[in-house]
């Protein structure tokens, strides 16, 4: 079973009615969202021909507005994201939403790791969980992925130093069969790649899932292609999947195909890259601001979101999996990101 099956026409046909229904659901259940829609001129009963025409919210609004579509007594979990300015997004999940997001993350990753929980190497430190009551966003990310593995082994010790003995022991136990590796991109490079290269560790049975962006690796001149090439050459690791996702669309994971040719959208999702001046969709190959689309959010109006990331669609229905094939190019400059939101707020005012 895989969640990467719909070509672009089939995807659009499936998503449009579901997203229209979700928009009405949130309008009916979130007064704040209803107010935003009204001020944007999106009134009930309006007809939409394309997903791109549906009203989207800048992701930043989740930092300043109470956007939820469930009553207070049904809130099961509140997710928060750390912001650069100290502001945090608040995402409200009821029990159903919490279960659905886990299920869909699982179904998405099953495409590349299978249903079995594999032995798991975590390129991080157990010290993340020292304070049980309050994890960092990084801790929450690591914990969310731990469900996919067994015999969890941390690459870093309590003092954030690579623990060669622990990694060697892990590879002695599990290195001859498929195993899972998870880490944030820059940590995977700084701590696992160099450790494996310098100590001639064999990672050829590994499946690496990594996320978090390339910004911290820019000064080392490491981009996605270089990352993949050197891991393969120096450690034998070939099964490498970058992914992209955000707490505001929890459960949705855009996953890199096996050949490294870009990120792909699971069947319940899509991306649109927009021109930051006109907000029109840009042609394939033209960079712009990334809008993310998911049919999962029912407990909060996060089904159509404009991110603060720049990206580019490389092709449509032309890769190893159907649908759009894209890359994330980095964060929008801060002023520009704020600009997006301000434009929106002015329009909504």
């Amino acid at each position, binding site marked *: 079973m895989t969640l990467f099956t719909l070509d672009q026409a089939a995807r659009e046909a499936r998503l449009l009615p579901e997203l229209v229904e979700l928009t009405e659901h949130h309008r009916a259940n979130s007064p704040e969202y209803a107010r935003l829609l009204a001020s944007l001129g999106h009134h009930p009963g309006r007809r939409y021909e394309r997903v791109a025409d549906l009203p989207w919210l800048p992701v930043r609004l989740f930092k300043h507005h109470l956007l939820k579509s469930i009553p207070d007594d049904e809130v*099961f*979990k509140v997710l928060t994201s750390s912001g650069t300015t100290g502001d945090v997004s608040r995402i409200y999940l009821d029990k159903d939403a919490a*279960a659905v997001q*886990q*299920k869909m993350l*699982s179904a998405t*990753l*099953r495409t590349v790791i299978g*249903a*079995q*929980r594999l032995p798991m190497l975590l390129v991080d430190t157990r010290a993340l*969980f020292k304070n*049980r009551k309050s994890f960092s966003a990084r801790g929450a990310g690591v*914990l*969310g992925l*731990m*469900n*996919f593995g*067994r015999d*969890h082994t941390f690459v870093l010790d309590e003092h954030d130093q690579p623990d060669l003995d622990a990694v060697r022991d892990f590879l002695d136990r599990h290195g001859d069969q498929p195993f899972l590796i998870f880490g944030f991109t820059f940590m995977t490079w700084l701590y696992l790649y160099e450790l494996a290269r310098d100590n001639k560790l064999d990672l050829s049975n590994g499946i690496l899932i990594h996320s978090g962006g390339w910004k911290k690796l820019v000064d080392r001149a490491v981009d996605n292609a270089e990352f993949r090439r050197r891991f393969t050459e120096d450690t034998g690791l070939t099964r490498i999947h970058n992914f992209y996702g955000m707490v505001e669309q929890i459960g949705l994971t855009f996953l890199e195909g096996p050949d490294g040719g870009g990120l792909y959208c699971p069947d319940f999702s899509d991306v649109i890259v927009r021109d930051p001046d006109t907000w029109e969709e840009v042609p394939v190959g033209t960079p712009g601001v990334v809008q993310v689309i998911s049919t999962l959010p029912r407990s909060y109006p996060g089904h159509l979101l404009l991110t603060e990331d720049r990206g580019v669609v490389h092709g449509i229905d032309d890769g190893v999996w159907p649908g759009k094939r894209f890359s994330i190019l980095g964060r929008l400059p801060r002023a520009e990101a704020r600009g997006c939101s301000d434009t929106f707020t002015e329009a909504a005012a």
Partner: protein
Amino acid sequence: MSLTDRLRGVFVDALELPEGTDVENLTYRGIEQWDSLGHMTLVAAIEDEFDVQLETDQVIDMSSFKVALEMLRGLGVDG
């Protein structure tokens, strides 16, 4: 020992539950010990005790003591 008793023992040990806890009616996140981190410990302890391997979706679905009990029965584990 019955399956229920053995599983109760695993819950008490793995989650470090105080005496007198109503284990059989526990639900995930219903008490502070059974948070996502506790869940990892609990899954590993269940796998050790009953010599089973749970799949990712079973780990995600294990939302209460009763569900865990049914899951083990489904895997052919008995008393």
